[in-house]
């Protein structure tokens, strides 16, 4: 048996095909790393594009602020222009930009309402303008801590007010909404405290993104907790994602590490199969789809079949060879990424762990990049094995390499569309369809699978059933195949 496998491997590695495939994959890996390094846009978006501002200018010229029907739109557009003007001064990516977008925005909207709205109030306008001037002064002084402390104070005061209000309220419904408001205020305070204590300057870097989403996710979670209704499956999934994001963002804030960074070697490894899965699968399928059919087409199968081995043994040897090629493809893709990624980004980022939230005991796990990669690949291995088995079965049954390569590739690409549709419209019977079951990553760490009713044992049974259903006819056909004139 082992000598049969050895021979199969010799045949594969003496052919040019496998090296051409490897070179193509290497080329793709280099290209991917290159794009991540030089073109990756890390949420670097513009609030207001020039085109948009031109449009706003045109629109505002058409409006008459004295006409009651135009007033509210006029105020909105005018505010946009005012904000834009302010942003131009500091740049869209300055720390000031965030303050302007959050805090100054409310002031300017208020001022414009008094200036152009129905209840015009010169006095109020003056007051607000004074406040805006103070803010701008602080912005000019680069004093971001002022705003952080301000946020802290506002939250503290709000909490006091709300606690007072709760004491004096009897109405149950009102009490509930007040309590929710109180939790929100407490979250605001927590966020403000983090900013002050960790000295997180405003901006649009990962710390600010983590801090902001920490706040908003915490609020959403509290709201879900407060609602008395049973959660639907989608809501449970949402609930879980809040749990995970809150814990992860808290980790980011407390440890000051950029967990979400995509454009380095760690980022690419964290989504390895998504990046290179198609190439690994293509390489495996090319081998699996030709390993039997090519010998039939070239007539060399006769050499094998008149040797003192049963046909079952010959086919098993070829199947095991295919499994070895799967391991080879995955390992060579990892090695190539390790080399290419190292050249592009260096290896420093590999020391940062990957975070996963364990839903079974609600803890955040820090996982080494390579351990994480191993777990992910193991969980996604059924995809590769099942597709390769399909190619192998077609290759043996129809002895047609083109069919044996094209169909599994089509299947892999089609699977992604089918899965989305099945989940979107909650097609129950699709639970027994292989493509919804072959990715075990969603069962890791106690998370909820993408569709209600899917469980790890069900998925394992479905995968094994498909595997066996594909292999049995393959062996029967191969055993009984007459060698026609070639």
């Amino acid at each position, binding site marked *: 048996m082992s000598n049969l496998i050895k021979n199969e491997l*010799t045949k594969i590695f003496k*052919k040019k095909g496998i090296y051409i495939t490897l070179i193509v994959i290497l080329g793709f890996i280099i290209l991917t790393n290159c794009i991540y390094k030089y073109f990756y846009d890390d949420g670097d978006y513009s609030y207001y594009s020039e085109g948009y501002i031109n449009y706003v200018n045109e629109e505002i010229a058409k409006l008459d602020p004295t006409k009651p029907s135009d007033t509210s739109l006029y105020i909105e557009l005018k505010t946009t222009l005012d904000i834009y003007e302010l942003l131009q001064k500091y740049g869209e990516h300055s720390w000031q930009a965030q303050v302007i977008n959050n805090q100054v925005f409310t002031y300017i909207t208020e001022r414009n309402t008094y200036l152009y709205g129905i209840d015009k109030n010169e006095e109020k306008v003056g007051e607000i303008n004074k406040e805006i001037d103070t803010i701008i002064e602080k912005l000019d002084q680069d004093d971001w801590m002022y705003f952080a402390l301000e946020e802290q104070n506002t939250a503290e005061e709000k909490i006091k007010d709300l606690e007072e209000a709760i004491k004096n309220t009897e109405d149950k419904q009102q009490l509930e909404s007040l309590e929710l408001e109180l939790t929100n205020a407490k979250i605001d305070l927590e966020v403000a405290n983090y900013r002050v204590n960790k000295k997180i300057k405003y901006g649009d870097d990962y710390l600010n993104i983590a801090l902001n989403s920490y706040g908003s996710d915490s609020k959403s979670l509290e709201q879900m907790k407060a609602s008395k209704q049973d959660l639907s499956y989608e809501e449970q999934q949402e609930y879980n994602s809040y749990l995970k994001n809150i814990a992860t963002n808290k980790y980011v804030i407390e440890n000051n590490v950029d967990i979400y960074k995509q454009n380095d070697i760690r980022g690419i490894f964290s989504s390895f199969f998504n990046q290179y899965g198609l190439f690994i699968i293509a390489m495996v399928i090319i081998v699996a789809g030709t390993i039997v059919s090519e010998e039939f087409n070239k007539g060399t199968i006769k*050499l094998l079949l008149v*040797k003192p081995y049963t046909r079952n043994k010959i086919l098993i040897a070829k199947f095991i060879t295919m499994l070895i090629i799967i391991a080879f493809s995955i390992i060579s893709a990892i090695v190539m990424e390790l080399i290419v990624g190292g050249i592009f980004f260096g290896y420093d980022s590999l020391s940062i762990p990957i975070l996963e939230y364990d839903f079974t005991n609600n803890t955040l796990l820090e996982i080494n990049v390579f351990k994480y990669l191993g777990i992910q690949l193991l969980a996604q291995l059924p995809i590769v094995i099942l597709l390769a088995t399909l190619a192998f079965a077609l290759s043996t049954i129809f002895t047609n390499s083109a069919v044996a390569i094209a169909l599994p590739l089509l299947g892999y690409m089609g699977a992604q569309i089918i899965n989305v549709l099945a989940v979107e419209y909650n097609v129950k019977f699709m639970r027994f369809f292989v493509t919804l079951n072959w990715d075990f990553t969603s069962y890791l760490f106690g998370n909820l699978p993408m569709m209600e009713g899917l469980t790890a044992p069900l998925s394992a049974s479905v995968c094994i059933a498909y595997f066996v259903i594909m292999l049995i006819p393959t062996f029967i056909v191969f055993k009984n195949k007459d*060698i026609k004139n*070639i």
Partner: protein
Amino acid sequence: MELGKTTTIKLILGLQKITKGKVQINGFDVEKQFTKAIEKVGAIVENPDLYMYLSGYENLKLISNLYHGIDENRINEVIKLVKLDNRIHDKVSKYSLGMRQRLGIAQAILHRPSLLILDEPTNGLDPEGIKEMRELLIKLAKKEKMAILISSHNLAELDNLCNKVCIIKNGKIIESSSIEKIKNEVNSEYKIFEIDDTSKIKNLLPQAILLSPNQFKINLPKEKTPEMVAKLVINNVLIYGIMEDEKSLEDIFFEKTGGNVIE
């Protein structure tokens, strides 16, 4: 010409399912004890299909891995035997048909089989190649003590090479015995006489078959030959030569099969 030669070989080698009857090699049934039956068999079926992208040596190495006890020495010995020493490390895709045929034989005899099965081994070879192949096969039979089973429609070739023949017509064996026996059986005692003018014997020997203006054929037992010679000499017929009319395998084939009729 689909007379069932290749099919027979495929049945023997287990490449096609046997619908009726059975095949035994060394006492082992091919269907029931395939690996034991095939262990001592080497074969080329149809064309010598080898791995074109490998060198001749790599091809032999692959085959040698599938049997126990074939070492480098045996491989080199076989390479020498089939006279491929000079080109053995070239890719098979660069080989001529004759070289491929020889490499095919090399892979079939690596494990010292007791039965070598060849399907039209001289097909497509040039005259020199045919001669070399014939010498090789005779050498194998004598030196390596192999039984060689050859299928062919080149009867002259088999006549030169074989001890035993088996004639198949429309899938049925219609003759199976040693060549000599068949020939003796078929050869009546005809003699061919070469003389000056056959018109002289028209009345003298009415039973003679005229072959040409100076050749005729006649059924004549050995012991009656001197008598016939005397008779001719007396009648002033000049005798230039007397030959035995030996039939070729080809003649026997057509006699037995009645020509190539596919029913």
